[in-house]
């Protein structure tokens, strides 16, 4: 029944490692996003995909690479993890591009040691 799901919920890893976070939505939405929330709860968009096509790519290091194998999935791969990457990462989806509410996943807490 989960609308937007993410795995894993927690991810602890060492600096320099490569890791992936998966996201799936079963809402039939066209658009998906990745957000980063820092320790002060500030939410910042990282990427937006519409029908598997990259639409928004905010100023994010190229160590972060999103992949959308199909409309229902948007995965986030991170290379050479750094301490500053520690945050909660949220996946979200919306019906389509434009002014529509976004449905958020439960988040993945990434801790880089």
């Amino acid at each position, binding site marked *: 029944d989960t609308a937007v799901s993410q795995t894993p919920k927690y991810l602890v890893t060492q600096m320099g490692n490569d890791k992936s976070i998966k996201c799936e939505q079963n809402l039939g939405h066209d*658009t998906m996003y990745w957000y980063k929330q820092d320790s002060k*709860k*500030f939410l910042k968009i990282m990427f937006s995909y519409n029908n598997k096509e990259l639409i*928004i790519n905010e100023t994010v290091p190229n160590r972060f690479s999103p992949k959308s194998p199909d409309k229902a999935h948007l995965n986030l791969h991170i290379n050479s993890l750094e301490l500053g990457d520690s945050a909660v990462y949220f996946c979200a989806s*919306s019906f389509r591009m*434009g*002014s529509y*509410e976004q449905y958020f996943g*439960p988040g993945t807490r990434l801790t880089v040691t």
Partner: protein
Amino acid sequence: GESVGLHLPTLSVQEGDNSIINCAYSNSASDYFIWYKQESGKGPQFIIDIRSNMDKRQGQRVTVLLNKTVKHLSLQIAATQPGDSAVYFCAESLLNTGNQFYFGTGTSLTVIP
């Protein structure tokens, strides 16, 4: 990004009282605003939205007011309950940016039983 700020980072209210959470935005071109509620350990959840052609919108126990003259948004929660304790975010969507939302810094609401 554009500035979407909140006047108060924390707010404590007695159960049963009304709560008002404020948000200031800087871009007069923004045409769509959403309030999100984020409970501890969860992703943001849509509460209510308002378009720039409206001044007020009501939901169940919540009302959003939009003052475009001073670029101010507020969320009013009637008869606040313990379950309302969460961080509240306003988010604005800018014209011609697809559905890229800029989030405010969040206000932490604590309801005292």
